[in-house]
């Protein structure tokens, strides 16, 4: 997994105009890292790209 640094997270937050202090960025870093790690695993498991065209299970309506 790619590791996110506090400095990089701060740059991203700033780019999004989110005012977070150093202490908040420190607490946020492991939360975001967990989230990105989980998301990366899910992306790898999901055959949704054009290289897997036609292999994805058919979407269903979950409100049936």
């Amino acid at each position: 997994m790619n590791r996110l640094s506090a400095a990089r997270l701060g740059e991203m937050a700033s780019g999004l105009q989110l005012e977070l202090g150093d202490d908040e960025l420190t607490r946020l870093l492991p939360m975001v890292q967990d989230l990105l790690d989980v998301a990366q695993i899910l992306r790898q498991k999901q055959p949704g790209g054009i290289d897997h065209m036609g292999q994805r299970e058919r979407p269903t309506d979950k409100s049936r």
Partner: protein
Amino acid sequence: MSRAEDLHLLTVAAAGRRIHDGSLTPTSYVEALIERVRRLDPVLRCTITLAAEAALAAARLAESEIRRGGWKGPMHGIPIGIKDCIATEGLRTSANSRVLGDWVPAQDAPAVAALRAAGAIVFAKLNLNEFAWSIPSEDDLHAPPRNPWSLDHYAMGSSSGSAVAVASGLCPAALGTDAGGSVRQPASNCGVVGLKPTHRLVDASGAFAAPSICEVGPITRSVEDAALLLGALAGGSYAENLGWPPKRARIGVPSRHIDLAQADPQIGSAFAESIRVLRQLGMEIVEVEIEGLADAAAADFIVLNAEAFAAHETKLRTQMADYGPSARLYHTQGAFLSAADYIAALRTGESVQARVDETLAHVDALATPVVPFLTAEAARAAKAQPHTGGGAVFTAPFNLTGHPALVVPGGMSAERIPIGLQLVGRAGGEADLLRLGHAFEQATPWHTMHPPLDAAAALG
């Protein structure tokens, strides 16, 4: 049962019958519950706004309507609590956040309007984790509700106030919201019934909630009451035929998924005992394997975080300081996800939904524990990573797949903290699910137990 002290034990169905036959008036019922809230809530902390005057006015109106022959049904004159992230016309809706402060909505959320149309009385706005997505703390705008079974513990969230109020007899039923287990986990933790309906069966607009995965659902003291509320919320008569036990229903148990969660041993024992009861009721228990349930739990929280940030983006830029320390981070973390992350999470849901549907073509329902931990504090101590689904491994998958899930009281720990049983049904299959839950409830003693609140009253 006419003393004010005893009215708090009435279920919605029982109170409705007494209001209909004239042996209980909505006014005396509401007055008794107002007195109980004022006595116990300083300790329980589950009420943000008690709508005493408005509730009494509505009770007097209901009384007059019923006297004139205008009885609307079993909800008429019944006081209901509403999670404070669901809009209520003319009544402060804070979501337990300084961001909203004293906001008074101009109109009801459709779910609240549906209950009022059925004759219910909006009685109180109930406490929650800030915007239903944060770790509660004493520094919150309204400090977290205590579990009435063990006042040393917070109640699990996020619909903590709703579950505490119902379990403590402050109101007979309440509405919560559930995007990952927020109706079902507190219901389990407080020994009451919680229902997450099928996705979009109940209109969840007007609630601060992630739209793709969040449902508005009832928290009650009986399955019959959950059926009555669902009937009012969604239309239909779910409470009819509850007493007809399901004919040799097949119950699927996803054992591998359950084992991987490594639940507290007491939860494992209670679940095993619940399965024994279901078998004794004549149900066939079969092992099922549903690939990807843990992924679905994690994916549910990707969707939740992405949609939470999307909803709060503007306020986070302009009022960051008004969010509590936890809510600030919980609502911000989704900002760093990509569109591809969000789409992968939704696709995970589609895949797992198809597998759950396929399984439910062969069995009538799934049974699982509700939460792997006995207390909110134990989940946090185990670093269950609530923001990525660790503590919601049994509940969150069915938010993402949209299947209905019912929690009924299913046991009691050695520390006298309730343990629930989750039953998951086919999409739109609430009637069957409620019949199954009712049969289990009636075969077990758990729903007859009440938290020991005498000490709390003395403290208050």
